[in-house]
């Protein structure tokens, strides 16, 4: 009736609602019992009337099911029941212990502030922006309308794209102009600047099968007091009473322009769009860039106020920012200048060092010739 491979069979009797769960072999036993010897005696009416059987006789429906020889149509096989038998442990499991259990996913360590809050995520975002951008400009925006923002961003993108094409780079996609929340940004800035936890990272990964089970996973306390990430309590405590040089700038409506690398060419293009100052950063001419002279862009640009910059962790004011933008040839240009200077120094040093050696050589040579002449003199006189 039931194939030998079927692990479990559920027999379902619709009549009285009883369900009979039994393994395949047992149901075969039942079949044999009921059909051959046991059934006639059990169902003889006299016996049934004389004494009440202790085992309740199977109902007619079940009896019918048990009697019929055809494979049952009502029989159901459940996958859950089949999975009840666990497979044998793998070889790796037999030889190694199970790895230690991590209490949380590596990407979601417990945090000091509730991580679901928007400001927690903003803090993480700002910290990551600050860690990744070496060049950042700070602007105050005074009631710009959305159409003005759109126009300014469009002009900025176009100008940067031109610089990209000229320099065969692709920085434009990484340059972003975004409005920030000053309070969260300032605490993110402090965390990035002042909070340098020991770089003793946990190399032990509980999900790695090669980790021995006896390895001591650092146990994190429930309050997260020994975590070192941006949202941790340690970061909060270490920076709560610090003050950064950029701090006074971080009030009022602020927007930041972030660059993925220090590129004075791009900075120059951005400055000439956002806050042109004629000699070094001329505004684009009407013929070259008519879009920049649109009324929304113009009015928006008037309302943007360049406040300062942060270049490789150092704070610059407006003049400093313009100076960074005015470096010709960018970082390469600076290097060329430095190399030229060092080469000049090198030539001087070598000539100085050489002069000492030369003079010594000349002196020694002079003395030698003198001695030789002295030696020769008497010998000549002798001979």
């Amino acid at each position: 009736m039931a194939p030998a491979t079927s692990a479990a069979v559920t027999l379902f009797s619709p009549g009285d609602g009883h369900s009979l769960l039994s393994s395949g072999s047992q149901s075969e036993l039942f079949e044999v019992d009921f059909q051959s010897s046991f059934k006639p005696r059990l169902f003889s009416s006299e016996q049934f009337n004389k004494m009440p059987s202790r085992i309740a006789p199977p109902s007619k429906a079940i009896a019918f099911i048990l009697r019929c020889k055809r494979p049952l149509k009502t029989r159901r096989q459940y996958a859950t029941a089949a999975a009840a038998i666990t497979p044998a442990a793998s070889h790796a499991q037999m030889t190694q212990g199970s790895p230690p259990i991590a209490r949380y996913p590596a990407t979601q360590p417990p945090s000091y502030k509730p991580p679901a809050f928007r400001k927690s995520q903003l803090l993480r975002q700002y910290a990551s922006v600050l860690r990744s951008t070496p060049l950042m400009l700070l602007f105050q925006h005074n009631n710009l309308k959305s159409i003005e923002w759109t126009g300014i961003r469009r002009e900025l993108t176009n100008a940067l794209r031109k610089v990209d094409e000229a320099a065969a780079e692709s920085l434009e996609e990484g340059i972003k102009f975004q409005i920030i929340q000053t309070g969260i940004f300032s605490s993110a800035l402090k965390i990035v600047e002042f909070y340098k936890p020991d770089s003793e990272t946990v190399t032990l990964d509980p999900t790695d099968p090669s980790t021995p089970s006896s390895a001591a996973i650092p146990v994190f306390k429930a309050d997260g007091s020994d975590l070192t990430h941006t949202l941790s309590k340690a970061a909060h405590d270490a920076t709560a009473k610090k003050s950064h040089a950029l701090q006074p700038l971080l009030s009022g409506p602020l927007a930041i322009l972030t660059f993925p690398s220090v590129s004075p060419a791009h900075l120059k293009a951005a400055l000439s769009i956002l806050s042109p100052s004629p000699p070094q950063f001329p505004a684009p001419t009407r013929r070259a860039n008519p879009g920049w002279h649109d009324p929304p862009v113009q009015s928006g640009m008037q309302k943007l106020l360049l406040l300062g910059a942060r270049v490789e962790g150092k704070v610059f004011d407006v003049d400093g920012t313009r100076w960074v933008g005015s470096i010709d040839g960018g970082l390469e240009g600076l290097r060329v200048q430095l190399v030229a200077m060092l080469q000049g120094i090198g030539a001087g040093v070598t000539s100085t060092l050489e002069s000492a050696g030369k003079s010594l050589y000349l002196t020694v040579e002079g003395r030698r010739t003198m001695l030789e002449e002295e030696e020769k003199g008497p010998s000549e006189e002798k001979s």
Partner: protein
Amino acid sequence: MITRFLTEVSTVFNPFSPKAKTARLFLSFLPSNARQTIKINTKMLPKISREPSFVELKFSKKSPPSYARPSAVLSLMGGWLTMGHFIEDGKQMKLDAEKLGIKGVVEEVDRHSRILSRQEELTGN
């Protein structure tokens, strides 16, 4: 803040000084279309300077035409072009931003603007 009667705003501040907050906030309080009617000068001091920050204001007697007031719509074009031709109130204020704070500055501006608006109402314009 009543900005209808302002014709000129000039601010001087060093953004790296914490006291510059007042002047900067004052600039951000001006409405979005303020630059059509108000002449705004902003001078930014270098980082090391210790000069005080201040807000200098000039008032006009008549408020400039705006979309909100239907009587002024006719003279709108003229209003834009003749920005300098408003009857000058003559009142000039030089407010010490460091001392007053943003609340104080707004209070001073409002105080004078209310006087002007009352005069405007009484003359029936």
